[in-house]
């Protein structure tokens, strides 16, 4: 290694000037396979106050568990027009909303017997706000998903905090999930060193 990665700086309060061009609150256009989901949530600070100047980015696999990226070598189909990227800003109440399809399971690390493990369906999330000097990385998992039990990333997290990574159903048979991002304090979301 000859160089060091450039130092992060905050997005500040005026990021929408530069980032709004790529706001994408609907990740899956018409014809993209998979179970539709709507995710609603709120970013909250250490006082429980909404964060009106935040933006989150979503990265996810398609419904087959395939990423639209050259390093995903799995023999699974790609969906035309699905790039797996979303970006949404919070509103004055700190709320955000996006629609997508539930991703399929993706490969995890090799297991002890040399066989590939599988990760439960999840969204990889970056959180940026004024006041955050660098992004926060987290994940959103899905409720009522049996694969969560064996997910190796959820297993890295203290059981008392795992629920912060799993969205809640808003009603039986509803496609709408609720998932808040709590930056600090009681019920603080689990963030990762990525």
């Amino acid at each position, binding site marked *: *290694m000859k160089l060091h990665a450039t130092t992060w700086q*905050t997005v500040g309060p005026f990021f929408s*000037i530069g980032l709004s061009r790529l706001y994408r609150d609907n990740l899956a256009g018409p014809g993209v396979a998979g179970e539709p989901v709507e995710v609603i949530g709120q970013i909250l600070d250490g006082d429980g106050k909404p964060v009106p100047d935040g933006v989150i*980015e979503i990265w996810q696999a398609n419904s087959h568990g395939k990423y639209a990226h050259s390093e995903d070598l799995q023999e699974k189909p790609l969906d035309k027009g699905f790039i797996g990227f979303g970006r949404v800003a919070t509103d004055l109440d700190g709320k955000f909303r996006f629609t997508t399809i539930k991703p399929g399971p993706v490969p*995890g690390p090799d297991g002890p017997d*040399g066989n590939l493990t599988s*990760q439960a369906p999840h969204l990889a999330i970056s959180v940026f706000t004024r*006041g955050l000097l660098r992004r926060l990385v987290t994940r959103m998992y899905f409720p009522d998903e049996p694969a969560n039990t064996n997910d190796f990333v959820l297993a890295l997290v203290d059981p008392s905090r795992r629920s912060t990574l799993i969205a809640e159903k808003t009603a039986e048979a509803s496609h709408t999930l609720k998932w808040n991002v709590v930056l600090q304090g009681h019920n603080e979301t689990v963030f990762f060193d990525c």
Partner: protein
Amino acid sequence: MAAIAGYRRYAPGTQPPYLHPPYVSSEKRAPSKPLVYLPHTLSEITGPVIGADFCDAKACDLTRQHSGEPVGERIIVSGRVIDEDGRPVRDTLIELWQANSAGRYLHNNDQHNAPLDPNFTGCGHAITDFEGRYRFVTIRPGEYPWTNSYNAWRAAHLHFSVFGPAFATRLVTQMFFPGDPLIPFDPIFNCTADEAARNRLISKFDWDTTIPLEGLGYRFDIVLSGREATPFEDHPHSHGVSK
């Protein structure tokens, strides 16, 4: 399936802490619990591919987005996006935003008592070329006051957002200008412990990219996390990442 080569973690001290009390806004937004170490998986070594079809080739010139010319000093900001091993990061999107020459952002929440410029939006983007190069033509942004503390001023800066090849390589940073007297007093610039790392955020004046009778050149190279060596593959059925 082969073991995965992740991306390198940041060298100690070279990145800001989340909590930096001189930057008052960090106090209620910094996580209070330790981060959980996330080994890189397929989810982190892949990442959004925002190709040329999302981009406008003219968006790298912020001085030609309106019918008239923006007020201020025209500058040429260029450099390379490379990884920690010096390899070019090709075809990656750079997003840029900034204040105008009077230190005012085109944003409803910017209450600074300075004029907006009808010929300047302060937003651009570019895609790096085969050598990782990028180039913007813009206006040198003004310094501006903010409410962080009494008589607080931000040093002049440009905001850069870069994707790189993977979720793990995402970077948002700010570029500063050499000789700016506000730099020692800027709590955001000074949030990083390592002095050399901080100073790499200061661009370099550059004769080679200065255009006679047109504008001064500043160089700013952006370095993204490098790749770990491919792990030793001890499973008999492994068949290599780059098959």
